[in-house]
């Protein structure tokens, strides 16, 4: 009963400070990373290279915003990389079969939404025990469909409008895709902070049983996050097809893992209920900056994988540490009130 010899007020303040640093950690590390890289390579902070980083990060960023909502509900979506590929193939095929380029983008987004809807319904109605299994199945299934539809080959040329969205730049360096990322980010931010549905997504992630008891439509919420994740895969498909001017069944390989990594590195909790738009974006930028810096430094891509792995471990360990410190804080409060 007399365990705390130290003055509680001080350890309290120290704990709060440590927690603040941990929560701000990913952003601080990103800023630090940028400063270090910029001081080492003058090439890094040139407009051209910044444009490169943004363009390279756009796909991960968009996917991570979809993945964020899924992870907030304690889920995971492994199918987005395959879905991205399917969207590019579907878009290219529709374009080449003589359709107006106006229908190409809706078809690509529609393909994403369709896969997301299937994921959500299989999870909720099919009562498959964990979304990992559902989306593992569609991960391979959808990639198979993309290969089958395209005969396993890339399809060159997509509509001009897709090329502009995915590949063009404004002022010679700001990628158009960055504006797409910004638009999706603002939409998700509004949803999660201002709209009832977004509040419910966090409620379902925080305590699904309590959400059910308070008449929150849990099943519909779950379906909606997978549907939205599918939509982001469709959008990422538009960006990828535009950037490469092609549709290909091999696009987006491992993109789902980048997206998941971005969300986790940014500081969202894999246990659900916690994670913000800004965090997913920071995580995506971190991956983009690390890749770019290692390219500039001419380091082997093997090292990129190693570094990314270490970053993920550090991120998750700091989340564990955060949980531990929060628990300490709670105990201190309990003894004082």
């Amino acid at each position, binding site marked *: 009963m007399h365990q705390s010899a130290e003055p509680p007020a001080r350890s309290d303040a120290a704990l709060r400070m440590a927690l603040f640093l941990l929560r701000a950690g990913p952003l601080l590390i990103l800023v630090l990373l940028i400063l270090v890289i910029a001081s080492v390579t003058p090439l890094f902070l040139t407009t051209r290279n910044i444009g490169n980083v943004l363009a390279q990060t756009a796909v991960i960023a968009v996917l991570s915003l979809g993945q964020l909502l899924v992870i907030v509900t304690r889920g995971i979506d492994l199918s987005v990389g395959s879905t991205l590929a399917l969207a590019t193939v579907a878009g290219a095929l529709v374009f080449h079969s003589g359709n107006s380029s106006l229908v190409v983008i809706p078809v690509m987004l529609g393909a994403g939404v369709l896969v997301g809807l299937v994921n959500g319904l299989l999870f909720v109605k099919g009562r498959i025990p964990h979304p990992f299994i559902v989306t593992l199945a569609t991960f391979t299934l959808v990639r198979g469909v993309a290969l089958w539809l395209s005969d396993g080959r890339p399809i060159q040329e997509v509509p001009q409008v897709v090329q502009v969205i995915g590949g063009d730049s404004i002022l010679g360096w700001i990628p158009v895709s960055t504006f797409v990322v910004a638009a999706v980010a603002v939409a998700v931010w509004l949803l999660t902070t201002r709209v009832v549905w977004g509040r419910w997504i966090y409620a379902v992630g925080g305590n699904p049983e*309590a959400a059910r008891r308070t008449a929150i439509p849990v099943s519909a919420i779950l379906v909606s996050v997978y549907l939205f994740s599918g939509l982001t895969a469709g959008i990422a498909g538009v960006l990828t097809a535009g950037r490469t001017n092609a549709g290909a069944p091999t696009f987006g390989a491992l993109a789902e893992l980048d997206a998941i990594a971005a969300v986790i590195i940014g500081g969202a909790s894999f246990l659900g209920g916690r994670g913000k738009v800004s965090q997913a974006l920071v995580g995506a930028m971190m991956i983009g900056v690390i890749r770019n810096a290692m390219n500039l430094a001419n380091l082997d891509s093997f090292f990129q994988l190693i570094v990314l792995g270490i970053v993920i471990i550090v991120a998750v360990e700091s989340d564990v540490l955060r949980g531990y410190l929060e628990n300490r804080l709670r105990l201190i409060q309990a003894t004082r009130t």
Partner: protein
Amino acid sequence: MTQDGSFPMLSVRSGTKRFGGVLALDEVDVDVFAGEVLAVLGDNGAGKSTLIKCMSGVHRLDSGVIVVDGDPVQMHSPSDARALGIETVYQDLALFDNLSPTANFYAGREMAWPRWLPTGMRLLRRRSMSQVTQEVLDRLQVALPDFEAPVGLMSGGQRQAVAVARATAFVSRLVILDEPTAALGVREAARVLDLIRRLRGEGKAVVVISHAMDHVIEVADRALVMRRGRKVGELTPSEDSREQIVSLIVGGEG
């Protein structure tokens, strides 16, 4: 049965509930009045939880009726019970640890606009919700270190207080509390008992399940003792009746 000649706020008449072969509730009659605290006592498996789950819409009675303010009601879900002004604080508190007290208060019944949109698409009235929450917490004298912090960062007593305050904020008739002081320290338990008295003072009916006999004697106006799904006694808890209550619970001579 009436008290002060008034009608009960909620009654269960011949409430019976089976789970497979187990008779969890056997022809139980209960009356709860406005402005009183009714304790439901009994050993584990006596049927207390089943009784309050039937009162809060989680379970449905196999036979018997629930009467609210003189009208028989059908409750198919906890939200039906909530619509009747019955709020429940479950033993696990059913809090969203990742959300602020305000978000917890309003989970599933957010203040939002515009009304012509479907509920889920509406925009949150964040300021109004946090104002009301702050007012309720102030009225109940619940002090929180950080009003915007997620509930998961709060102590057991603070969490319990938030859960009770949430029920209080929306209740118009009856608050049901399942083991509200279990797992709390002495001071924190005292605060929750204080909250219960405040609720009674506001003219609400309160039903409390508790194993803590001291707390029951301190706060309850009436105690109902259950054993094996049946009501075996109903009496006023006091130091004098303590032994009688205990023997009713364990099944000795009343």
